[in-house]
């Protein structure tokens, strides 16, 4: 029984990181209707950058943290400017494919800079593992869980209460109408990609804190795709629910059934979701007309 609780607890907390990545994907999808396949590589970039700044340059940890987040934002903006903006008005297929190509390119770039080694990040999260009733909560996972929750609430308020958030929601509804109302759609696109870069860098560092940073990190990031589809592609709450559910289910399947199942449980969930409820748990169901 205790084991079961442990698996659920682990799932909850790793699910927090998936939720963060999923938030990044949903943000970009909501306003630009582009699905960002390159988010795994963006995460790795943030983590590698943090490693370089803290271990090689030896800056204070807080400054490294902020610089790595800023780096994530810059990468998001660069990607938007140089690959997505020329494709405005082109079929969506091209935009999806270009993020795939981009992930390959970024992979090459990070291999060129950081090589194929695995690095361990310095301890930047204070605290140590907590044990509640025999169930151990490791502090890094707790941190990521609460960070995900905090960011979720922040983003929720950002979308509902601020003017920029409102313009982003309007753009998500319809690019043309938003433009006609005087909203700078291009600025909204850049803004969403910058936010996506920020979230990617944050989740990348959290993941790397747990597993170390290497060229395998993007593969973990891919598991956020099932989370996004589970929750619904255009739903912020759905990203959080999806991330947590995928995290818990994969830990349960890995712990109780067979360890190799852990790696593919998210993808099995993905297939089932696509067959039975393609718009996800909380997503908007779109009706098509000719």
């Amino acid at each position, binding site marked *: 029984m205790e084991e079961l609780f442990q698996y659920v607890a682990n799932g909850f907390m790793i699910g927090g990181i998936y939720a963060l990545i999923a938030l990044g994907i949903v943000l970009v999808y909501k306003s630009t209707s582009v699905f960002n396949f390159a988010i795994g590589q963006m995460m790795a970039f943030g983590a590698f950058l943090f490693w370089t700044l803290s271990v090689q340059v030896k800056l204070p940890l807080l400054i490294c943290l902020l610089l790595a987040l800023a780096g994530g934002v810059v990468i998001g903006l660069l990607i938007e400017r140089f690959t997505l903006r020329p494709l405005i008005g082109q079929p*969506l297929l091209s935009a999806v494919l270009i993020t*795939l190509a981009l992930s390959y*390119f970024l992979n*090459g770039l990070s*291999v060129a800079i950081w090589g194929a080694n695995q690095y361990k990040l310095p301890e930047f999260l204070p605290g140590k593992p907590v044990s509640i009733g025999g169930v151990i909560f490791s502090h890094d996972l707790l941190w990521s869980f609460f960070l995900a929750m905090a960011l979720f609430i922040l983003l929720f308020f950002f979308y509902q209460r601020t003017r920029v958030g409102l313009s982003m929601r309007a753009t998500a509804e319809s690019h043309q109408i938003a433009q006609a109302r005087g909203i700078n759609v291009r600025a909204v696109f850049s803004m969403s990609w910058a936010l996506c870069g920020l979230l990617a860098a944050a989740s990348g560092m959290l993941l790397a804190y747990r597993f170390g940073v290497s060229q395998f990190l993007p593969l973990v990031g*891919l598991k956020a795709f099932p989370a996004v589809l589970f929750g619904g592609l255009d739903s912020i709450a759905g990203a959080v629910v999806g991330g947590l559910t995928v995290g818990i289910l994969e830990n349960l399947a890995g712990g109780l059934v067979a360890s*190799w199942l852990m790696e593919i449980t998210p993808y099995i969930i993905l297939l089932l979701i*696509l067959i039975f409820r393609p718009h996800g748990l909380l997503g908007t169901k779109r009706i098509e*007309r000719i």
Partner: protein
Amino acid sequence: MAINRPCGTFDRSYDQDIAIIRTRLQWILLVVGLVFLFSLPLFLGGKWLDLANFIGISLIAVHGLNILTGYCGLISIGQAAFMAVGAYTSAILTTKLGLPFWAALPCAALTAGVVGLFFGLPSLRVKGFYLAMATLAAQFIIPALIANPLEPITGGIRSLRVPAPEIGGFICRTSQSMFYIIIPMAVIMTFFAKNLARTGVGRAFIAIRDNDLAAEVQGVNVFAYKLLAFFICSAYAGVAGSLWAHWIRAINPEHFTLMDSIWYMGMVIVGGMGSTAGAVFGTVFLRTLDYFTTAYSTSLASVFPVVANLQSALAPLIYGLVIMVFIIFEPRGLAHRWQMFKASYRLRPFPY
């Protein structure tokens, strides 16, 4: 496209109208080209022959993907996984059951096709990049199944030895002999892909790609045709996988990664979606590029010693850049450039 016809060539019968090869010059070029292709082993060295074999195998997988993505408009990033199904089916049939290669090959195509059908099921309700997600799932689930629950018959992550194909008592061990299995297969599959696009099935695929709702109203059974596209795509991958297994002769789930699937997708894009000639251009171009970057990355890395890991980073860098440039500047691919060149050549000296 009438504009692409040589001057003075007219159709006097229906047979002439549907012919792929119209003029005597085209026939001569075809025969000379085929003779040249099949005499390649006479003057190509080992490395180049291996490249040719690799191009042939990739070409089959890319033709399948082109039918699915280029003609039917469904994205797949799981082609390498379906190749794995074909490779393992063929390997197990020949080693465990002792079937000859020529019998294992169609079985591999069939098995891969059926597995592809299963992963095509979500196309009942979703399309576009949602479907890409289903194939992404295939890309992770299939190698994991091969490595773990199917370990007793596949050997798991240890490599599975595959015998050399034997045809009529002749065992094909060398690159030369494999060339005469792979390249004829590639030519046959190209011919089949070219003709498929011109049949009713191919037209139904194109109708679905252009507007699936309109296609349904026109009486095209959209779901059945989407599944058929998945079946054909995966069956092509199965053939490619089977050939790959018997050429490399030791297969491993690690050989069939997401990156390989993205490579195949890239070949379709660079060549030009929805064009059989494009699939050939894209495959030859990217495989040759890959060959040269791998061959010269060591010397390039010594020129720029500042970037220590350039050697292993060069291939993904160049490859990612090439696809991005093609998507942004020439989304219709090399095939479109070739058409434009032909048109301008025929119309010379007039601009149009």
